[in-house]
């Protein structure tokens, strides 16, 4: 069997088939008797709640879980997927969810594209920069990208997350795979960047590649997929073709009937002003922003990466000082010098990056919950276990956190449940103002609903909740009032029941097209990092 054959272009040929694939960690069965076929020239979406077995299945296919039982066949021949390298040689490539894990900082962009070559024994031991650049450029050309030598030679750590995503994708395509696996490839991308990725994927499908696409976002799947596989508790619930019956799919995913409707049935209007932002510029050179945040409502702030969401959140949470202007809280001046000041004043921030900024790895669920409020759990500086347990139990109950016990290490929880713990931690103090930066990233729909309900509860009891996101549907689902941020300025501010989706999307995306880069800069930068202009603001998300 040779591996360099051109990819079959007819479509509907089964490339990879799984029969009776199971996997368990100790006594915990995470995959059970999975039978699936993936055909050339088709995009198969893989759906499932957190912990349904998606990651395990992907790992088995990509050679990272060699101890699966059952059999996997490629083009009809049974194979043993023992390591990622073997899987790649057999034609299965995977792009994993965490983009940062796929990038080696300190190596150049070109070296990152060619990373698999660097791993091989003595072949290609001597590197030649000109040849490397040519090879990297050829790989990037598969994605329709034409990056300059300057970009190829720069340190990959300086890439924007969306470009880093493209680098990992180009690397995956270099081995001319028959099956490409993408695990939540858009979770860190803005809509415009995601749309560009979809174009690439459609082109790859037309070339006859079989694609497995994992995502929590129904909109993406509707736009992209040919069929949908639903996993729940490690078993395949359904494998359906277009047109997709979303109500049924949601039911199969969660195991219970659920409303798909994403609009809120009731829109609250806050009466009292809890906090104000007065003439604060979000970027050094941008115009000042003023905003009043009211108790009794959930405020959704929608914006692309670089629109100033994270900057606004950091100013409110005491992580960064406003460059100018001022803040008020409950009518008096509010100038936190550090996060502790904000917490004491009743302002909490759920940060954007759960792994890096949220959880304490190796710590129990209970201790992760109580860490910002240790003073409330202690007497004379001495910790009271009973108070900690009580607080943790309340949080776990309020948000339906799935955990064996309060003493389970947080690392053992699925991503969605970890996020519930982090959100619950911050809401457990009944804050005056809760700011949540991208709280739904990589979180399944049930967890998202749970968090949304908790925010509504906070608002109904008089508190203010601010959710910042780059996903229109997430914002529509949780918000009473919606503000659209574009390049550090408020582009739209209104109540959800007075706005329609189109108006919001236009305010949000129109900005991207009308992005304020002068045409001369565009030409100059035509060969630079990406093919479309970005907002001129400093990037908040780096690899």
């Amino acid at each position, binding site marked *: 069997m040779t591996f360099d054959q051109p990819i079959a272009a007819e479509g509907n040929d089964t490339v990879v088939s799984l029969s009776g694939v199971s996997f368990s960690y100790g006594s915990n069965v995470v995959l059970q008797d999975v039978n699936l076929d993936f055909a050339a020239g088709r995009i198969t979406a893989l759906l499932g709640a957190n912990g349904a077995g998606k990651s395990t299945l992907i790992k088995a296919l990509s050679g990272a879980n060699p101890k699966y039982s059952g059999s996997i066949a490629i083009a009809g021949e049974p194979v043993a997927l023992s390591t990622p390298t073997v899987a790649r040689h057999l034609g299965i490539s995977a792009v994993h969810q965490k983009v940062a894990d796929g990038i080696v900082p300190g190596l150049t962009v070109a070296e990152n594209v060619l990373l698999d070559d660097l791993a091989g024994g003595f072949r290609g031991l001597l590197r030649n920069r000109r040849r490397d650049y040519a090879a990297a450029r050829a790989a990037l050309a598969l994605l329709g990208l034409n990056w300059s030598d300057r970009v190829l030679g720069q340190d990959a750590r300086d890439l924007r997350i969306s470009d880093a995503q493209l680098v990992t994708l180009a690397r995956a395509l270099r081995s001319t795979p028959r099956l490409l696996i993408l695990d939540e490839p858009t979770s860190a991308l803005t809509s415009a960047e995601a749309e560009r990725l979809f174009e690439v994927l459609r082109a790859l499908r037309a070339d006859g590649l079989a694609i497995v696409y994992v995502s929590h976002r129904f909109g993406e799947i509707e736009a992209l997929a040919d069929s949908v596989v639903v996993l729940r508790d490690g078993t395949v619930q359904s494998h359906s073709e277009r047109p997709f019956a979303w109500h049924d799919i949601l039911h199969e995913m969660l195991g219970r009937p659920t409303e798909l409707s994403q609009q809120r049935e009731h829109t609250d209007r806050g009466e009292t002003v809890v906090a104000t932002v007065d003439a604060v510029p979000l970027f050094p050179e941008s115009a000042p922003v003023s905003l009043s945040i009211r108790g009794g409502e959930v405020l959704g702030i929608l914006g692309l990466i670089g629109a100033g969401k994270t900057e606004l959140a950091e100013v409110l949470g005491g992580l960064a000082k406003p460059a100018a202007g001022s803040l008020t809280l409950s009518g008096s001046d509010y100038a936190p010098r550090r996060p502790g000041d904000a917490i004491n004043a009743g302002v909490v921030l759920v940060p954007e990056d759960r792994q890096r900024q949220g959880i304490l*790895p190796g710590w129990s669920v209970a201790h992760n919950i109580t860490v910002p409020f240790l003073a409330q759990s202690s007497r004379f500086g*001495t910790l009271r276990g009973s108070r900690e347990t009580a607080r943790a139990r309340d949080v776990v109950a309020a948000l339906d956190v799935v955990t064996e016990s309060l003493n389970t290490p947080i690392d053992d929880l699925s991503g969605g449940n970890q996020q519930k713990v982090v959100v619950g931690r911050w809401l457990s103090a009944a804050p005056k103002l809760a700011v949540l930066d991208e709280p739904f990233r990589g979180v399944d729909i049930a967890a998202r609903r749970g968090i949304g309900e908790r925010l509504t509860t906070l608002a109904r009891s008089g508190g203010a909740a601010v959710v910042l996101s780059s996903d229109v549907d997430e914002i529509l689902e949780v918000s009473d009032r919606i503000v659209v941020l574009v390049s550090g300025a408020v582009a739209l501010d209104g109540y959800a029941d007075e706005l329609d989706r189109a108006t919001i999307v236009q305010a949000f995306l129109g900005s991207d097209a009308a992005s304020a880069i002068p045409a001369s800069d565009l030409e100059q930068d035509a060969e630079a990092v990406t093919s479309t202009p970005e907002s001129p603001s400093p990037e908040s998300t780096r690899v």
Partner: protein
Amino acid sequence: MSINSAIDSVRASIGDRISAGIVRWGFVGVTIILVGYFVISEPNFRTIDNVFGMLKFVAPTAIAGLGVMLAMTVGGIDLSVGASAGFAVSIAAWTMVVGNLVGTASIAVVLICGLLIGALNALLIVVARIPDLLATLTMMFVIVGLKLLIVDGKSISSKMTLADGSTAPGSFTPDFLWLDRGSVGPVPVPVIIFLVITALLWFLLERTRWGRALYAVGANAEAARLAGIRVQLYRTAAYMGCGLLASIAGLLLAARIGQGDVSAGNSLLLDAVAVSLVGVSVLGIGRPNAWGTALGAVLIAVMVTGFTMAGLPYYAQDFGKGVVLLVALLFSFTFSKKRTVVVAGSMAN
């Protein structure tokens, strides 16, 4: 699920339990076996004098190890503990012999020096942002060098002849020597100091919110900062605490030797780091902790004393310690399923 896979999973879970048990109790087990062996084979080993003798012998190492442990709780390490202890030995001797201070005054000066060294370490790490491993390694040289400059490169003993030909005015005072020779009932003073410090640190780390905050800084400094913890303050406190403990270890050494031996403390660093790392693995705790560190120190004392009694040459000790440390590291990093949270000498950030 088929019957075969059910059996497999049960078998797997029994295997997990056995390996978890070994990780948890293995170290204590080895200590008990060693003690049992020496108790049977060496009649002198089982005397109460020997028990206190061993604890007294290991007290300085244990206390310096507790200092390293404290730096480890915030995700750092302190390689200057040995140098700080040696500095304390020379400063104690110098203040008493040359400066003619009484013991208590000398002790106060030494403790203040320890805090200052810790503060200087913290300054380099927290403010100047030099990686902890490199900052404290550099400080090790600086402190040893400074000590040699102060004492003109010589050991200081009572009634020594000074550079100008006169005889030194002071000597090691009895109240200072009490630190080593005194006892409360049958218990020698160094053992009491060792146990009291261990208990205080255990209480601080496990029972107070300051301890929880120290561990939080070590587990994820960014998350700790966002949780309102003053990360830099806690890191500074940890290094100052480490400097203080190192100088206490130095005081005990000075009182034991009875002179300002210029080479004292040189061998302390490796032992101190070793016992704090053993402490991480003891009982499978998986993070730096007070009683584990104390137990690690006792284990090494038992081993050294036992082998010495059994007639092994003194130069075999380092090999024995190395093997113990290697086993400890295998337990905490290789065999343990639990994530080990010590980031000794982490170069990140």
